[in-house]
């Protein structure tokens, strides 16, 4: 309020005028409501203006003030009750009940509207539209009003909106990319939205998965995202695919939609989606984000390349990190997800030039966006080439996880025991040895920026990537000496008395590699703390921060 106090008198005046107008409007509406209640049997207190979910009046004063007509829920409250220029617009539900003699003030006949709805099957979704009018298009007044700001865009217009309303779009992944994509596509007025995900909403994903709320933590992402989309647009048909996308169901699910949005978080699923789109002839809007970088392109459209044309050889598994491993700045997938919605809208509506055969690269650190021209379709591509090896019949047999050596999930793979068991100690055992007062060195081999998040007391941070260079330091630590007091001990004694080294990391992978390295480089008394800090939190100290 402090800011308003300091505002200029003109603005305050304007604000006051707006407040007055708003109050007048509200009283108008409540008068109207009373009249309606007197003459019409209201099903609920708020007037249902449209869609399966009634929209209450008090939250939609702006909408009412901008619309020009009221079509009443019953013929018995005709024109007589309209108090002023501001009239109500009533959508499908009420309109379907309108008496056949009811014309609206534009003179467009709304008779027999119950029977005039056209039910179209759009990719398995039923889409209601109006017909039998002397109109140039099929947009009913509510739809015109709702999407008016898009209709006003010359490049989009009525045709674009009509096409969009008929389209069905599948979003695979309801996470960082899928969240904004779904929100914008729902709001923009696509006919049918399919959502695929098998995960549940997690607290550590909320920073980027903006479609989900704190209250949805633990719920399936699809359920949470579908509810959010329906809340935005009650006309939207939402299909919920809870099982996630697998080689066994991909062709079937993808076949039901016009346009596919790849908003997944892992490499094998990206190849699977690509292949299924190619064999089913669907354009694929592909987005990806990690850290501070994003990528976007449209595959298999207009004789452009597919994902396999560009990346026939998958990168090694450790070259494609997940957000849970490498982190991601939430707004980066947000931007890419929005761009995916944009490309999908362009494809669905026939607007502009989709980003085919070009790759957009976002570098958030420098706020630079580059577009790189890609190759055309590769004629020897195994899925979109001239003699394809993959088809809709055999695609389900392809082992995508083996092909990419990674899992169809961004979950961290189970820790692999690489060392002999005797080289490791459990977190509990390490804690016991500490309590016994054993002199030792605790090496934490995570990267410095991870070490800065949380670390055990008395640990020394030697990032795994710097291990080789820092052997001398480790040697000093194991000797239990500070450089200042080194002279006090004869070196041969020091060499005999290396303290044991315990190595810890986030999840127990790099620590094992470190133990292996140190044991073969003069530190035989080196042990892995099995399972790393995540295990420490689980088994020893529940308050130790997990990230």
């Amino acid at each position: 309020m402090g800011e308003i106090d300091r505002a200029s008198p003109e603005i305050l005046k304007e604000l006051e005028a707006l407040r007055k107008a708003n109050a007048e409007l509200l009283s108008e509406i409540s008068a109207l409501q009373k009249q309606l209640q007197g003459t019409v049997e209201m099903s609920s207190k708020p007037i249902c203006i449209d869609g399966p979910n009634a929209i209450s009046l008090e939250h939609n004063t702006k909408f009412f003030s901008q619309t020009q007509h009221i079509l009443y829920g019953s013929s018995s409250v005709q024109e007589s009750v309209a108090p002023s220029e501001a009239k109500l617009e009533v959508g499908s539900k009420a309109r379907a009940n309108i008496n056949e003699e009811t014309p609206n003030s534009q003179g467009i006949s709304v008779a027999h509207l119950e029977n005039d709805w056209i039910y179209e099957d759009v990719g398995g979704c039923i889409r209601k539209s109006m017909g039998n009018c002397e109109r140039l298009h099929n947009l009913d007044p509510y739809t015109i009003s709702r999407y008016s700001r898009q209709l006003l865009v010359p490049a989009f217009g009525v045709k674009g909106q009509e096409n969009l309303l008929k389209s069905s779009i599948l979003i695979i992944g309801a996470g960082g990319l899928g969240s904004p994509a779904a929100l914008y596509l729902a709001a923009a007025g696509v006919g049918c939205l399919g959502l695929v995900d098998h995960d549940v909403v997690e607290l550590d994903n909320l920073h980027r998965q903006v479609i989900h709320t704190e209250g949805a933590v633990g719920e399936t992402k699809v359920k949470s995202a579908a509810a959010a989309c329906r809340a935005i647009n009650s006309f939207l048909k939402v299909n919920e695919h809870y099982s996630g996308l697998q080689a066994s169901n991909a062709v079937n699910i993808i076949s039901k939609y016009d346009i596919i949005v790849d908003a997944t978080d892992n490499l094998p699923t990206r190849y699977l989606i690509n292949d299924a789109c190619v064999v089913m002839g669907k354009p694929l809007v592909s987005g990806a984000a990690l850290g501070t970088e994003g990528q976007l392109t449209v595959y298999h459209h207009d004789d452009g390349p597919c994902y396999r044309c560009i990346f026939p050889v998958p990168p090694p598994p450790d070259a494609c990190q997940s957000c849970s491993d490498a982190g991601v700045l939430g707004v980066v997938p947000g931007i890419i997800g929005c761009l995916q919605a944009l490309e999908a809208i362009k494809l669905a509506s026939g607007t502009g030039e989709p980003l085919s055969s070009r790759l957009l690269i976002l570098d958030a650190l420098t706020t630079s966006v580059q577009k790189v021209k890609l190759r055309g379709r590769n004629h020897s591509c195994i899925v979109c080439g001239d003699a394809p090896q993959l088809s809709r019949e055999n695609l389900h047999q392809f082992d995508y996880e083996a092909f990419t050596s990674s899992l169809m999930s961004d979950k961290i793979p189970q820790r692999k025991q690489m060392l002999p068991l005797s080289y490791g100690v459990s977190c509990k055992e390490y804690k016991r040895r500490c309590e016994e007062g054993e002199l030792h060195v605790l090496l934490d081999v995570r990267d410095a920026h991870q070490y800065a998040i949380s670390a055990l007391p008395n640990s020394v941070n030697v990032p795994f990537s710097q291990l080789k260079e820092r052997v001398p330091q480790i040697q000093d630590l194991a000797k239990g000496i500070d450089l200042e007091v080194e002279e006090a001990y004869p070196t041969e004694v020091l060499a005999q008395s290396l303290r044991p080294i315990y190595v810890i990391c986030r999840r127990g992978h790099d620590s094992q590699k470190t133990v292996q390295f140190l044991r073969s480089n003069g530190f035989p008394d080196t042990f892995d703390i099995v399972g790393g800090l995540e295990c420490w939190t689980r088994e020893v100290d529940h308050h130790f921060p997990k990230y």
Partner: protein
Amino acid sequence: MTSASIESIETAKGAGFENHRIRVSVLMFAKARELAGLSEVSLEVDEGATTADCLKILVSTYDKLQSITESMVLALNHDYVENPVVVNDGDELALIPPISGG
């Protein structure tokens, strides 16, 4: 990671001839940036060198890049490089591995 730093690589001149030297600026993205430890590097090569020569020098300087050379987009002046092409002074070469996160 030193994303802002620009390093410079100068390679030995071809023996015998007094070759003209040209400079190519190399942009690293995603995993390439991480493996090389920088986002941009200025490369000095003999006139007539190709994109493949540039890549060879890069891999020999930043050996960790080797693991991803098969799986990335190589773009010269924002244009996809399918077969090696000759680079010119002032060209921009981009190494773009795929990212898969979301």
